[in-house]
Structures are given as C-alpha cells and as structure tokens.
C-alpha cells in the first residue's frame, strides 16, 4: 500500500497538476493566438469595464433575468459551483498535504462544513443527472460525453466523502479519491469542463459587445 499511495500522491499528482496548469495555459494561449490571427475584431471590441459589468451580473445569483426565471436551478448551480471550488481548495486534509509537500498553507474550512459542501456537490451532480435524463430540452442535447463529464466531476467528491467517513475500505477509497481528483484536474482543460477557463472570456466579450456597441444590458 505504501508504494501505491506514494505513487498516486507523488508522481501522478505532479503529472496531473502539470497537465492541468499546462493544459489551461495552452488552451488560453491557443485561444488568444487564434483570435489574434483569425478573429482580431474581438480585441477591438473588448471592453474591460463592460466585460466586468457583465461578469458581475452573472456571478451573482438572481442578478440576471434567466436566473430569476429558474430559482431552483439557480440555487443548485450556485451552491454546486461554490462548493465545487471551495471545498477542495479549503479542505484541511488537502492543505496539510500542501504544507507537507511545499510548506505552504492557508485557512481551512471546519471539516463538518466541508462534509456538507461535499454532499452539496454530489447532490448537484444528481440534480444535473436528473435534468439530463428527464428534461426534454436538456435530454435532446445530451451526449454520452456529458454523462462522462458529470461522472468525472462527481467521482472525487463521492470517493472523498467515503474516505473521509472511513466506513469501509478506507485506503481503497482514499487512493481512488486521489486518482479521481487527478482525472478531474486533467479533464478540465481538455473537455467541456474548459468552461471554467473560457466562460469569463465569452461572458466578457458578450458584455463588451452589449455594453460598448449595443448600449444595452445583457442580463
């Protein structure tokens, strides 16, 4: 077990983080290069003020019409995304690993809170799965890859939850948890999870067009 654990926690973690950071940079740079080459207008119309104004209206729940029209979805998706980001980054056990490896540490969430946040993420995944399976407008545009992506996101949280509670097969779930987390990190730049990287740009561009050219609101 020492060997396997050390492998997933050591070299494999390095690989995952390098692919995550490298892949993210690659996608960003590739986007900018192709924009410069073939879509130069996006730079001409880009406006920091209107871009931020638009982002502002879409990262605050109920600050735009669509989110007010769908209160349940809005609550779920905001809770899901906040927990998805905050729980792993501010998790005590994760920060201890950063501290152990690099001597850096930061404020952490109480473990009970992180536990609930994990459940919120899992609940969010179940809600999204339910939408994909039952809502016609979502079902129609759902591909097998959408389920895979959902599974990639759910896996680290489910395994992390099981490992944290140590009910059965602690080390098995722990190693699976680390692997699942690494898969997710690598998947971010190379799947539609790339919306994490791209969405601020698409939002800001739409905000720029609406703000400085159209003089209209886009929320």
């Amino acid at each position: 077990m020492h060997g396997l654990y050390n492998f997933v926690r050591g070299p494999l973690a390095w690989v995952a983080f390098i692919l995550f950071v490298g892949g993210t940079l690659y996608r960003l740079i590739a986007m900018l290069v192709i924009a410069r080459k073939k879509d130069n207008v996006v730079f001409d119309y880009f406006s920091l003020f209107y871009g931020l104004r638009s982002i502002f209206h879409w990262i605050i729940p109920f600050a735009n019409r669509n989110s007010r029209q769908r209160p349940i979805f809005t609550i779920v998706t905001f809770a899901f995304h906040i927990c998805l980001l905050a729980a792993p980054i501010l998790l005590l056990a994760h920060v201890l690993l950063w501290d152990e490896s690099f001597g850096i540490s930061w404020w952490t969430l109480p473990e009970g809170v992180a536990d609930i946040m994990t459940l919120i993420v899992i609940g969010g995944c179940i809600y999204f799965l339910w939408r994909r399976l039952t809502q016609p407008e979502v079902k129609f545009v759902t591909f097998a890859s959408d389920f895979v992506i959902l599974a990639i996101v759910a896996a680290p949280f489910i395994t992390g939850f099981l490992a944290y509670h140590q009910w059965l097969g602690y080390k098995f779930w722990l190693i699976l948890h680390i692997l699942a987390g690494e898969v997710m990190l690598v998947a971010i730049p190379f799947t539609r999870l790339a919306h994490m990287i791209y969405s601020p740009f698409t939002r800001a561009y739409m905000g720029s067009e609406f703000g400085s050219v159209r003089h209209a609101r886009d929320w």
Partner: protein
Amino acid sequence: MAEGQVIDGIYFNEVWEDAGLDEGTKKLTPEKIEKVINKVLEGETGARLKVYVDTCVHCGLCSDACHYYLSHDKDPTYAPVAKVKQTMWEMIKKKGRVSPTFMKRASQIASTQCNVCMRCAMYCPFGIDIAYIMSVVRRICHFLGITPLYIQDTAHSHAVTMNQMWVKNDEWPDTLQWQEEDAQEEIPTLRIPLEKEGADIMYSVIGPEPKFLAQLLYQAAVIFETAGLNWTMPATPGWDNSDMAMYTCDNEIMGRVKRVHFETARRLRVKKIVMGECGHAFRSIYDRGNRWLAWKMHPVYVEHAIEFYYNLLKSGKIKIAKKYEESVTLHDPCNVMRGRGLYEMARYVVNEMCADFREMEPNREHNYCCCAGGGVINCGPPFKMTRMLGNRVKAEQIAATGAKVCISPCHNCHSGLEDIVSHYKLGVHVKFISDILYEVMEKPGAV
C-alpha cells in the same frame, strides 16, 4: 399544421416546399459540402466559434429565450442549443462530411427557424452567441446555394440594383416627387430635397417604402419640414439602407451595398444618416456592414428613427397637438433594442404621443422576437406558417396588454406582427411611430 418527419435519417420538425431549398439540395454532393464547410470553418471562423463550441455545456438554459421553443410547447428541437446541435456541432464533429439532406435541414433551421434576434445570447450564462453560430451556418448554405428562394431573390436584387425591391433608378426619384406633390397639398412649403450637398442629414429608407409603403415617405417629409431640418435624400443608388444579403450571409454583397450607402452619405457631405423605422437595416449599417468594410463603428453617424424622433420631441422641434387616445402597446424590435439600447427613448416618444401606453411583458431588451426579422419573413410565403406557429407567445403577449394598437418601430416586425395579429385574430392595429406622430403632431405649416 406542421408535422415532424424523418427524411433520409434526418429529423425535420416542419416540412415545407421551397424551390431554393429543394432544388438546391438536389445539386449538392458530399464532396462539395465537405469542401465548403471546411473552407468556411477554416477560412472565416476563429476563436469565437471554437470557444463557443468548446464552452457550451449543453445545459439547455437558453431554451426559454426562444419564441419558437416556447410557441411549440417547449418542443426541444426548437431550443437554441438544439439548433446548434442539429447544425454546427455535427458539421464540426464530422469534419464537414454530412449529407445533402442534413444541409437542407441545417439551412431550414438557420434561415427559417432562427431570427438571429440574439435573445438567447442573453440567456446563456456564458454569453455564447448562438445567432453568430447560425450566421456561420447561413454562410455555408449561401456558398452551397441552398438559401431559401425568396430571400435569395432579394439578395439578387441588392446585387443588381443596390436596393431590395428591384426598384429602377428612375422609379425612385419619381416616387419621391409624387409624394412631395401630395404632401404639398397639405403643407405648401414642403420639399423633399434631392442630392443636396452639405445638408445636415441624409434620410435613408428601405426598398419597400417606395415600392408599396410610400405614405411613410410622405410622413417623414412632413416631420422633416415641420422640424425645419436641413435634410436631403440621394437620387442615386445608395438610398436604400436595407440589406437582405446580410441575412443570407452573402457578405460580399452586403459589403457592396453598405459601401454604396456610406459613400453616398460622404458624397453628400452630410453630418449624419437618419434612417426610417427599420431594424435590420440599422443592424446592417450600425453593426454588420461596417465591420465587413473594416470600420469598427459606422463611418458616418447613424441615427435610427426612434432616436431621431426622441431628439425632435425632447428639443421641442416637434410638438404634440393632442395625444393619441387609443390604447397602445410597444413592440421592442431586437435590432434597435438589444442591438442599440433605444428602449428608453422609444418609451419617451410613445408616452409623449400617446395617452394610454401599456407595456408588454417581458419588454425592452427581453422582449420576444417578432419572428419575422433575421430574414425569416423574407423567405416568403413557403415559410409563413413557420412564423405563425413559431410565435404564438407573441400573440399572447400582445393580447395580454389589451391594447388596440401595437406600435412597431421596425419594418420586419411590423409586417410580421400584422401576420400574427390576423392569424391569431387579435383585432389589433399595427402602426409605426411615424403613423401616430404624423397624426398627433402640430403642423404649423399646414393649410
């Protein structure tokens, strides 16, 4: 009633006969399709399309933005994202290796089941511009020669005559003189100045005005005369600001038409172009055509009729004699509301003119599309039912106001709403702002 059908393995949610689509499709070969798709994707698209496609998480949140989707009882094939799925995703995934029938369906979706009104762009949390993606699909269909017949004919008219309606060069000044003479019976001093170099304003209209809406030219002349403005109209091609080539995504023709329009304004050395109550023409001058010609914004200041009337009323150049009594509601056209944010000005104008104004819900930039714009009404009679069935929500929205008159400061919306009003038997009159303004304004020069 439109029925869904599977043809050659492709699902068509509506089946209509259209010579442009049907005959055009027969001439397609898989090789030609593949070549054209890849030519457009590689040659004309870049970061935007790629990022839009890679970012979309298939969440379906754009659905409720679309009047087609809502009017068809939430039929998922009409959702904006579903339109992308049935067109662009497949083309990209198969690297252009799609069938002629697939392309026919793609053309039907992009040209007749999407008004490129951009409402969905406001409902996508990521701000993905689905109207842009549909425009790329139209561009591909244009190169493949499978654009619906009627709008293609209109684009041909632009290419040949620089106007939308095959109006001949002598017919245009002739119509203006006819309207001038008629108007002089009401206001003897009235002129429609032609080719007046150095005027402050060049007034431009769309092709259908001289063709069958000549009273609008009359009304505009009365407004200009009463406000005492130094204005002119060109006697040469370039008078028409409309642009169906923009909607067939025949960008080359769009560029030619806009160039002539801008150059005419420059030749007349005017300070600004004021245009009639048209939405798509505004989009083509303010947003699309200028970009194609490499102008970041319009090279000559462009003022839409709403802003023009607003300034006249605000400055007191036009005064209201007696407010319009009939209850009115206002339709917000996409191209000047989402496209230019004129919603508050429009409300000021309507409230100045009318005693009983009732808002539609939703309104302003969230207003439902008329289902006629984006070139859809220009696809002609074969697709009239697409518009009628595709915009029940608009009929319901108008009916809910209880107003007797629906003001629509856009030609496409105006025609589309008239069809909807009659199809759904709403008993509402559709009017332009100028129809009412002409009626209620003070006319000191009138005899």
